[in-house]
C-alpha cells in the first residue's frame, strides 16, 4: 500500500511517500521568507505553499521511484494550523485523490506528530506518555493506541517553542529561536542566571512559559542589555540559563506523568524535541527511571510529510477514510 502524505499547516511545505509503513521519501522545504519578520506571517506562508506544493510532491514521488498511478491513498493535514496554509495542501490533496480515484484521508497535525516515532524500526509500545513540544504546542498525552489519546496537560499560555522564539527576539539573535538559542547555549553556563521553573500547582501536568519569558525580559532590562554592545559569552549564559529552565520543566513533567500513568515508554515529538540539551537530559532521566525513551530523527522533529503519511497508513489499515468535503480546521483538537 503506497501512501502520499502532504503537510502544509504552518511554514514547512512537505510531502512523503510511504510503502507498507516503510518510508521511501520525505521532501521538506522550510520557508525562509519569515526569518526577517521574527515569526511566521500567515499570508506569506500560504503564498509560499502555493508555489511549492507541486514541485515538492513531484520530488517526493521521483525520489521514491513511484508513478502517480501507483498511489493507493492521499493523506493531508486538515488542522490544526494556519487556515490559508492548510487550505493549499488540503485542496491539492483532495483533488489529487479524486483525480486518481483513490481514498483521501484527512490527518490531524497533532496525531501525525505523535506518529513520527513510528517512522523508524524502533517504535514505542502502547500505552505510553508522549510530550509534543513545538512552536505552536506543548501537550502531554497518554497514547493508548494509534488514534486513542488522553490529554494529560498542555500549556496555559505560550508554547515552549514560542518562548524560545520570543527570547531569541529579545536577545536579537534571530529566528527561528529554538536552534539559535540551542547553539548559543552550548557555550554558556546554565547556572549563570537562576530563572524561575514554572511548575504550576503540585501535580499539575499543565505548562506555562509566559512568566519565564517575562523573567528573561526583566533580567535583560535590569542588566542594561544593549543588542549592539552585547558580549557573546553573556548572551551564551542567558541562553543556557533560559534553556535549562525550560528543559527542567519539560523533563520533570514528562517523567512525573510517566510515573503517574505507570507506563514504561516515553516519547517526545515536535520541533523542540530536536533540542540537544533536552535530548541529553531525557536520555539520562530515562536511564535513571528505567524508562524506554523514543525521540524522532531530526528530520521528523519539525513538520514533515512522513508523519502525515504514517498517520494515513494507520488510518487506511483501520478502514478510516475522509469525505472530499473535509475542510480546514485551524483549531482542531486532539481526539480523545
Amino acid at each position, binding site marked *: 500500500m503506497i501512501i502520499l502524505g502532504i503537510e502544509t499547516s504552518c511554514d514547512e511545505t512537505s510531502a512523503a511517500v510511504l510503502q507498507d509503513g516503510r518510508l521511501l521519501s520525505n521532501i521538506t522545504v522550510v520557508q525562509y521568507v519569515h526569518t526577517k*519578520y521574527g515569526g511566521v*506571517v500567515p*499570508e*506569506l506562508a*500560504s*503564498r509560499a505553499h*502555493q*508555489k511549492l*506544493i*507541486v*514541485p515538492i*510532491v*513531484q520530488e517526493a514521488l521521483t525520489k521514491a521511484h513511484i508513478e*502517480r498511478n501507483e498511489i493507493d491513498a492521499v493523506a493531508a493535514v486538515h488542522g490544526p494550523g494556519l*487556515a*490559508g496554509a492548510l*487550505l*493549499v*495542501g*488540503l*485542496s*491539492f*490533496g*483532495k*483533488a*489529487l*485523490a*479524486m*483525480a*486518481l480515484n483513490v481514498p483521501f484521508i484527512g490527518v490531524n497535525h497533532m496525531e501525525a506528530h505523535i506518529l513520527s516515532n513510528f517512522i523508524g524500526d524502533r517504535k514505542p509500545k502502547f500505552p505510553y506518555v508522549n510530550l509534543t513540544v513545538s512552536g505552536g504546542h506543548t501537550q502531554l498525552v497518554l497514547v493508548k493506541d494509534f488514534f486513542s489519546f488522553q490529554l494529560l496537560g498542555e500549556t496555559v499560555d505560550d508554547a515552549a517553542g514560542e518562548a524560545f522564539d520570543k527570547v531569541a*527576539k*529579545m536577545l536579537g539573535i534571530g529566528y527561528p529561536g529554538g536552534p539559535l538559542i540551542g547553539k548559543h547555549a552550548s557555550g554558556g553556563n546554565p547556572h549563570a542566571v537562576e530563572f524561575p521553573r514554572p511548575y504550576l500547582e503540585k501535580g499539575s501536568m499543565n505548562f506555562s512559559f509566559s512568566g519565564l519569558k517575562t523573567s528573561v*525580559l526583566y533580567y535583560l532590562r535590569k542588566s542594561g542589555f544593549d543588542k549592539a554592545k552585547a558580549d557573546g559569552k553573556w548572551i551564551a549564559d542567558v541562553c543556557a540559563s533560559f534553556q535549562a529552565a525550560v528543559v527542567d520543566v519539560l523533563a520533570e513533567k514528562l517523567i512525573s506523568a510517566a510515573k503517574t500513568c505507570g507506563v514504561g515508554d516515553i516519547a517526545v515529538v515536535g520541533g523542540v524535541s530536536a533540542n540537544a540539551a533536552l535530548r541529553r537530559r531525557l536520555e539520562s532521566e530515562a536511564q535513571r527511571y528505567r524508562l524506554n525513551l523514543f525521540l524522532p530523527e531530526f528530520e521528523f522533529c519539525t513538520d514533515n510529510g512522513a508523519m502525515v503519511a504514517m498517520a494515513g497508513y494507520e488510518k487506511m489499515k483501520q478502514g478510516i477514510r475522509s469525505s*472530499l*468535503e*473535509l*475542510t*480546514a480546521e485551524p483549531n482542531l483538537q486532539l481526539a480523545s
Partner: protein
Amino acid sequence: MAILGIETSTAVCSVGIVDDDGGIKERSLIESHIHSEKLLTLIDEVCGGSFKSLQGVAVSIGPGSFTGLRIGLSTAKGLCCGLGIPLAAVPTFQAIARCAARKKGLHSLVICLDAKQGEYYAASWREEAGGKEQECAVQILAMPDVVRMIYDADLLVTDCTDAVQKADASLQGEDVHQFCSGAMVAELGRDMLESGRGADSASCEPLYLKDFIVRVQPKI
C-alpha cells in the same frame, strides 16, 4: 477539447465544463466560506463522476478573494497533477466581463470589486466591432478614479454598489456574482490551451495584484 472551469474568486463557487460538441454544463453555489467544502462535489457533478474525457483544467486566477483563489488553484493543480492534463490560468475580470456582456448584450462595461482598505480592483472592458476584445487590464484604484471610468461605460458590474453610490448616487450597478461562471472560465481556458497559452502548474500562482505588506510591530 473538454475543459473543466473553476471559478472561486468571489462568494460564488462555480464549476463548468465545455465539451467538444459545444455542450456546456455548470453548477454554482452563492455562499461565502463553502468553497473548500463544496468545490469537489460540484466538480464531481458536472463531470458525471468520470474524468476520462477531460483534456484540461481552467481556473479563474484573480484578482479576487485570496482564500477563494487559493482553494481554486490548489484544487486545479491537484486535478492536473493526478490526471496529467494541462492547466489554463484565466484572468478573472475577462471571464466576468465576457459573461456580463453576453448576458446583457452590451459592448462596454466596468468591473469594480472591493479590494479592502479603501481600494478597489477595477477594469474597463470593451468589445470592438467584429467581436475583438480589448485587453481587460486590472488596476487598484481609489473610488473617485473608479467613478471616472464608469462614466464612459454601458454597465457597471460590482460587489460594492454602496461604495459607488456614496461617491455618485446616480450610478447603478449590476451585482457581479451573477456573472461569475465556471463555464465561462472553461470556455476562455479552452481558447488559451488551443492557442498554446497554458500555464505551468508547478509554478502558477494566483494573480494577487496586491502585494502583501507585513506590518512589523514595534520592537521590545
